[in-house]
Every structure is written in structure tokens, then in C-alpha cells.
């Protein structure tokens, strides 16, 4: 489903932050992406989301070479990917319900067609009573769950999560991990970028370790 071949990335004229990255992920896999701060985890996630272009090498997503794709096709591929940002990126002027429904609205679906799904999902992530609340009044954990709900509402084939447990207590982190495992069981491939070893130890999943721009799968 995802194939990286000799991918390198540098910002401007700076040094390479990713070097000769090679890996192949199959459909329905579950991976942790780890490494020290500044190792290039977020850059790798941005390459997966096609928000950056590699300086060299080839990236194949869902069987397509991303380098050749025009902008509308890249947007269509992005619809098959759900992303959970480290800083949540919820829109402050929209309610929790509207934030979660945003991808479906963007896909051009009518509100009536997805209204029930959004409500059910929010109840499933434990935000049933916070649907009309705005992000500024949500706690860190609630924002995180809203961001996860937004990432999965479009039933993505691939879920990327950047430090999804960075702002929550260990108990909430375990709950969120169980949520990701449950999504994976339903068929979604999951990549969680984290340097929380306690979290990784709770799940027997392969680890993609980035160190000084080099990737090793353990």
C-alpha cells in the first residue's frame, strides 16, 4: 500500500533530514514511528500526507507514484488518509461536531447523509455530551479525541497520528491506543509517531525507528 524507495529530504539548501528511506507497508498493518526529537518523524508523516515533496527517491501511495500526480488527484489520495496532528488543529469557530464533520463536508456530502455517523462516532470516542462545545473549552484529552474522530470519520485506509498521546495522561493514552487498535482491526492501516516507550510496550507492533535521518524497521 505504501512504498518508499531511496527517499531523501532536505529543506532548501540545508542538510538531508531523511536519507535513503526504504520501506514497504501492507494494507491493514500497524506501525509505530519513533526516534529522538528532530529525527524526522513529522517530516516523514508530511511526506506520507503529500504535504512535502521528496528531494530524491520515489513514493508510491495506494499504488500510485505521488511525484506525477496533479493537484486534484493528490487531494483525492489525501481523502484516503486520516491525520491526527500533534497540536490537534481543530478550527476554533466550529463546534466539536462541525470539526469532526469537516472532512465529509469537504468531500461534498450532504449534512443529512452524515449527521448520524458523526454523532455516533462522537459518542464512541466519549464526546457525546461535548458535541456543541467549541475547541477552546475542551480539555487536552477531549481535543485529542475530537481530532482522532475527525481523522477517522471519512473511513480512511491509512491513519497517521503525530504524537497522539503527547498531551494526555497515561490513562487517556491507553484509551486512545485501544481506539487505534480497534480502528486497525476494522481494516485501517495505522502509523503512530511517538517517543512514548511506555505506550509502544503495550502493543506488539513493528517499530520504524528514525535516527539521524536513517530509518530502520524493527
Amino acid at each position: 500500500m505504501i512504498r518508499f524507495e531511496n527517499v531523501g529530504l532536505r529543506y532548501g539548501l540545508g542538510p538531508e533530514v531523511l536519507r535513503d528511506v526504504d520501506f514497504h507497508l501492507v494494507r491493514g498493518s500497524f506501525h509505530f514511528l519513533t526516534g529522538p526529537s528532530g529525527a524526522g518523524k513529522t517530516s516523514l508523516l508530511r511526506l506520507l500526507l503529500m504535504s512535502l515533496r521528496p528531494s530524491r527517491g520515489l513514493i508510491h501511495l495506494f499504488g500510485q507514484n505521488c511525484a506525477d500526480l496533479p493537484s486534484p488527484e493528490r487531494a483525492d489520495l489525501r481523502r484516503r488518509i486520516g491525520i491526527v496532528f500533534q497540536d490537534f488543529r481543530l478550527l476554533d469557530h466550529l463546534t466539536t461536531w462541525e470539526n469532526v464533520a469537516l472532512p465529509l463536508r469537504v468531500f461534498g456530502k450532504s449534512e443529512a447523509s452524515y449527521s448520524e455517523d458523526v454523532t455516533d462516532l462522537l459518542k464512541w470516542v466519549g464526546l457525546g455530551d461535548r458535541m456543541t462545545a467549541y475547541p477552546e473549552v475542551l480539555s487536552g484529552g477531549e481535543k485529542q479525541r475530537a481530532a482522532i474522530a475527525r481523522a477517522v470519520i471519512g473511513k480512511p485506509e491509512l491513519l497517521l497520528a503525530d504524537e497522539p498521546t503527547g498531551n494526555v495522561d497515561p490513562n487517556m493514552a491507553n484509551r486512545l491506543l485501544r481506539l487505534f487498535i480497534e480502528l486497525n482491526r476494522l481494516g485501517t492501516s495505522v502509523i503512530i509517531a511517538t517517543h512514548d516507550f511506555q505506550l509502544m510496550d503495550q502493543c506488539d507492533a513493528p517499530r520504524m525507528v528514525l535516527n539521524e535521518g536513517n530509518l530502520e524497521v524493527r
Partner: protein
Amino acid sequence: MKEILKFDNIKAYWAETVTASPWVAVIRSLVRREARAMSAPIVQPASVAGRALTVVIAIMCFLACLTAGAVYIVNQSANDWFADIASEVTVQVIPVEAAEFEKKVTLVSLFLAKQAGIVKVSPLSAEESGELLKPWLGNSDALSALPVPRLIAVEIDRASPPDMSVVRRALESNFRDVTLDDHRRWQSELRTVTRSMALGGFAVLILVGAATVASIVSATKSAMASNREIIEVLHFVGARERFIAHEFEKHFLNIGVRAGLVGALGASVMFLLLPVVMRVLSGGGLAAAEFRQLVGSAVLDWQGYLLFGAVVVVVASLCMLTSRYGVYRILKSHD
């Protein structure tokens, strides 16, 4: 036509291009409240930057409409003024032989009325000629003692005007002490004045237009910068560039139309009140008449108000296009 052929039928073309236009969305939102979505708009409707932009647009639109209206009125007045003076000539009869004077005025009038290309001949009476001198001589008995020349106003056919040199020669060969003034020198000077006024007006209009464009583009860019996060989130959740651009175009067009209408409405009120203000300021009687003669009636006709509509359309389009450019610029940094 090629555009239409891309679609299966005209209905698909209409749905994809015409009804999807931001102008249609904004007009719908202005006339039908129920046309709005149940969810909040994707682009934040009321932000600090958005409110500042609204104020800037309203003020600049007001100033642009005031300038456009003023230039339009000056231009119209100058044209009317010039048309009036160009369609009239004056014949002056010098009172040399007092006994035959009235008869001579009548003969000259009849002679002029027979000439081709002359529509109307209006000889001024002795009292009317005296009235013309009153502003300079006042109500004096000396006026009746003076040999005041008699004027004959001649209105010429604008469609087929007579050859004035032929009329002048015919007058001079048939009557003594009669002169024809076709206002050529006055017309030439007036033409220079009206052209200068029109050019000056257009120069001011261009300056105000440039200031309006610069202010609106700058304010829209600032408002767009505060929306960067929304654009990025939409991009990451899979929105196409066209969708994001359309959302922002709709939002900024809405701001542009509403604020522009406020500015244009303010300017319209000013122009509706202007004739009343001018009447009050100039007082009554002769002074008011002279003032009106000089600057016109200061009444803006429907074409002038149509000009305000054009200003609103230009201003709103400018907002829309700047936001579109802003969206593509931000998206380019992510693709």
C-alpha cells in the same frame, strides 16, 4: 462553447459553472436566509481582520463613489454648458439712428429667421437688454439715457448648422452697424476649461481608484493571513484547491458586496442631499441662479447611480480575486 462541450449537457454545465459561482452564492445569501447551510461556514464569518476589512472597504467604496459621482456631475455640467453655448449665436444691433432702431431690429430678426439652419430668433426688448447690464451698472436712471445695443439670440439647428461666415457676410452686406458673434473664442476657451475639468476629474478618480485597490488588496491579504490555519486544515483533510478557493471567494465576495453596498449607499445619500445643501448654501434669487449656472444643478442622474453599482462590483471582485490568489499562494507552500 468548448467549456460547455466538456459537460454532458447544458444542465450539468449550468450546475458546475453558473450556480457554483461565488456571485450566485452571495446573492442567494443576501436574498434567502434559508439558503445558508445548517453548519457554521467553513471560513470564520466574523473575525477581527474581517471586521477591519469591512470598514476599509466601506470607507474606500464611499470615497470612490463620491469621486466617481463628482467627476460624473462635473463632466455632465461641462458638456451641457458647452452644448448650450455651441447651439446659440448672438447678433448685436448698434443704436446709431434712434428713430429707425426698433424697425431695424425687426428687419434683422426677419432676415435671420429666413436663413437656412436657424431654428429660432429671439430679439431681446430694450428692458431685457437693460437687465443684462444691471449687475454692472445697478438700478440707475442713466441706463435709459445710454445707447444700449440690442441683442438678438439666434438658436441654430444642431443637426444642420448654417455656414456662419455666409450668414455674417449676408448680414453685413444688408445692414450697417450689425455684428454677429458666434462665440467661437468663448467656445474655444470653454472647451479648454471643460477638457481640463474632465481630465482633472479623471486624474483624481484614478488616484482614488489606485488608493482603493491598494487598501483593499492589503486589507484582504491581512485577513487571509489570519485564515492560514483553516486553509491548511482543509488541505490536509483532502479538500481540492478549487473547493478551498471557492469557500474563500464566497466569504470575501460577501464582505466586499456588503461593505461596498454600505459605502455606495452612503455616497448615494450624500448626492441625494447635495442639491438641498447647495440651495441652502447659495441662498435664493440671482446668486443661486448664477451658482447653479456655474456648477450645474448637482443632481446625479440614474446613470450616475449605476456608476456606484459598478464601483461595488469592482471592489467586491477585487476582494474575491485577492483571496483566491492568497489561497493558491498558501497551498503552493504545501504541495
